[in-house]
């Protein structure tokens, strides 16, 4: 039985899971959830994810939410095929992958998702982006990218010399971010820019990026 992903390819969090599935060469079925019609808030969906968000994964009897728990599960279940996303053969390398995945969750994601929320989601709701929130989070994001710039001067990818979940988790939101007028935050940092150009041209991502269709406002 093939894994089912409930969601829409335009959602960065869904794309995170789809990207992992492609890197692991794992078949799946994408079950559409109409986000604009708020189907993710219906009782039938809330019974799968009580927080009312996509993605949800179903693998036989197992139902999972939280995109990074899902990617960890897929990467572990299929650790013997596709890209080695977790460096599972070495406990120390494996935890460095977890460390930089935590950095994405706690330092990178709050700042970048706040910017994307203002520049993409808010206009779709017919409202005006809050410039102060954008400004504040661009500043935070800049500081995080300074740390990345230094790290990526020492290693090719965030957790070492191989592409792992630590890099993968960043890709969908960064893709949207690069379409805003603030791409300079990445392009002005040579190591971050080189890393970005590498990760966004991976074949697995080229299968996912066509689904990331929402267009941000450019300021």
């Amino acid at each position, binding site marked *: 039985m093939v894994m089912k992903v409930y969601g829409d390819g335009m959602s960065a969090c869904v794309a995170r899971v789809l990207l992992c599935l492609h890197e692991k060469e794992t078949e799946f079925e994408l079950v559409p959830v109409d986000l604009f019609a708020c189907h993710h808030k219906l009782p039938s969906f809330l019974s799968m994810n009580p*927080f009312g968000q996509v993605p949800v994964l179903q693998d036989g009897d197992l139902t999972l939410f939280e995109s990074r*728990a899902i990617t960890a599960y897929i990467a572990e279940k299929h650790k013997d095929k596709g890209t080695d996303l977790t460096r599972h053969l070495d*406990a120390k390398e494996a935890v460095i992958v977890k*460390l930089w995945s935590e950095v994405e969750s706690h330092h990178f994601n709050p700042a970048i998702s706040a910017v994307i929320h203002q520049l993409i989601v808010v206009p779709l709701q017919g409202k005006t982006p809050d410039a102060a929130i954008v400004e504040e989070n661009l500043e935070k994001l800049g500081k995080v990218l300074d740390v990345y710039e230094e790290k990526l001067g020492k290693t090719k990818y965030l957790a070492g010399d191989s592409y792992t979940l630590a890099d993968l988790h960043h890709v969908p939101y960064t893709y949207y971010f690069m379409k805003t007028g603030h791409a300079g935050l990445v392009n002005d940092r040579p190591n971050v820019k080189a890393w970005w150009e590498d990760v966004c041209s991976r074949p697995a991502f080229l299968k996912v990026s066509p689904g990331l269709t929402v267009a941000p406002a450019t300021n």
Partner: protein
Amino acid sequence: MVVKLYGQVTAACPQRVLLCFLEKEIEFEIVHVDLDTLEQKKPEHLLRQPFGQVPAIEDGDFKLFESRAIARYYATKYADQGTNLLGKSLEHRAIVDQWADVETHYFNVLAFPIVLNLVIKPRLGEECDVVLVEETKVKLEVVLDIYENRLASNRFLAGDEFTMADLTHMPAMGHLMGTDVNRMVKARVNMNRWWEDITARPAWKKLMKMAGFGLA
């Protein structure tokens, strides 16, 4: 050689690692980094943790930061010792991961501004953002309802046993229970039961004693 934890024993993120060490019966040494004097922002500590936060660990030559990654590493390294924090099957581990991620993405994002404003800022002599606290508490009520529902049919967050999913919540919850959020937890039967259950664990009691909090 014993693992060194750089941090302050009263701070939530170091406590997450300390609680893991205590549950796993791992020996450790605490190297105090004084948050009241912003030692964590000084060059010596930035070499251990480039974001200027605690904790960081040194285990011989091996160095790590990010409390949840550290806790996971030790829970994995010492899987056969102390409490099993990770879950038994691949599927159970995924459920543990799921609720641990819920702590990061839904709970901590709300707990942190409340603790920052009601606990940390007063210690540093800074002004509390009362409006933000009240707005955050409203959002927290919605999240706690989801937890309440989960804990109505599960003894712990990931099922029948105490795991990392529960442990990872405890430090921030401990701070929140010293604020008005105490009332919000006590008003929810299953959350209250869960909190009393997990704070009765010996490892938590040892941690509270180390942190200098009086026990009833």
